[in-house]
């Protein structure tokens, strides 16, 4: 039996997995996540077993039990429970539904609802040299210090074709019926090993055949979009509204519309790196 403790924002979650395929898939799910091995369960327990070629995930705190026969789907549901519990219980930080990558100490945060192309765009960023933090949830304090829930990047079926040519180590990909899980190493990318500083907000919108557009947003437009992706507002004083608006005022905010990676300018990753660097200068 193996146990891993995830201790973020005052929320403790223990993943418990039996030796064999359950432990192996848990290791992949947690490989980039800030967690440590432990001998005893602390906080919420997520229990993973494997029997008769089926994984079973149990979350007793929510009376939830799932049987799954594909590793990608196990990774999706296991990490989804971790996201849920963090967003449900974190009280000292703001949890945003957002992807994030970093260049040096500075983080680019990509808030977006499901379906906006957040995870696919994260793959592109990771494959273009940005350190990977998360494709789903960031935890940021009112000073802009942030960390991400570094799960394998999760791509739904319809997004697979777009990221196929970004794969360098396809043997690391964990397929599922609902979601395919991509450890960042499958893109030859690296996961960030320490917290970063918020430096740039980018609100993406993928639309088939859309032309590339990258435009600065007003603080009000960015504030509207950011609050729509704040997932633990009810746990915070004043729903975190004033703190989020202060972050917006002090951080450059852009919208990105694109119709596929082919529509992005060839120097777009360099542009983003430059934006992150100049943001640091303006904060200094």
């Amino acid at each position, binding site marked *: 039996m193996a146990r891993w403790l995830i201790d973020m924002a005052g929320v403790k979650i223990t993943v418990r997995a039996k030796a064999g395929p359950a432990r192996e898939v848990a290791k992949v799910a947690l490989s980039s996540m800030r967690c440590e091995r432990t001998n005893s369960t602390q906080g919420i327990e997520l229990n993973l077993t494997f029997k008769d070629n089926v994984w079973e995930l149990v979350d007793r705190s929510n009376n939830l039990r799932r049987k799954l026969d594909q590793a990608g789907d196990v990774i999706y549901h296991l990490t989804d429970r971790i996201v849920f519990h963090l967003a449900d219980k974190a009280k000292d930080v703001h949890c945003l539904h957002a992807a994030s990558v970093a260049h040096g100490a500075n983080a680019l945060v990509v808030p977006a609802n499901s379906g906006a192309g957040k995870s696919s765009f994260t793959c592109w960023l990771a494959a273009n040299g940005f350190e990977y933090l998360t494709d789903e949830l960031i935890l940021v304090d009112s000073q802009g210090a942030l960390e991400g829930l570094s799960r394998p990047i999760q791509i739904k079926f319809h997004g697979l074709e777009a990221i196929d040519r970004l794969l360098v180590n396809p043997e690391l990909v964990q397929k599922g019926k609902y979601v395919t899980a991509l450890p960042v190493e499958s893109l030859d990318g690296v996961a960030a090993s320490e917290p970063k500083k918020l430096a740039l907000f980018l609100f993406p919108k993928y639309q088939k055949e859309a032309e590339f557009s990258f435009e600065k947003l*007003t*603080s*009000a*437009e960015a*504030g*509207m979009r950011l*609050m*729509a992706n704040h997932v633990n*507002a*009810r746990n915070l004083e*004043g*729903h975190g*509204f*004033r703190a989020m*608006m202060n972050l*917006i*005022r002090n951080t450059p905010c852009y919208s990105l519309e694109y119709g596929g990676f082919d529509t992005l300018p060839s120097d777009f990753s360099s542009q983003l790196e430059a934006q992150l660097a100049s943001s640091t200068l303006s904060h200094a």
Partner: protein
Amino acid sequence: MNLENHYQKTPECLLEDMDGETLLYNPINATTLHLNGPSALVWELCNGNNSVATMIHTLQQAYPAQAEQIERDVIEVINELSENGVIQQMTSLQAPSQQVGS
């Protein structure tokens, strides 16, 4: 809409000036509204003392060239603010005009 209705701001709402533009957050239903020029004016007038008719009259006096449009705009904004829970219609006991003579 009854133009004699009075509205007041929902007290829990939070307002932020974002570089000259106003954002309004309602923690009760976790909605954020971007108040543009007309809606910011109507929001300010929803202080419990003004009926909808008074708001329309006040704004028509300030912007006489747009008098016809103003009535439609005020009603539309009141409906939007009310639907998002950031203003509340006052009861007959709360509204000043109803209190007179009571």
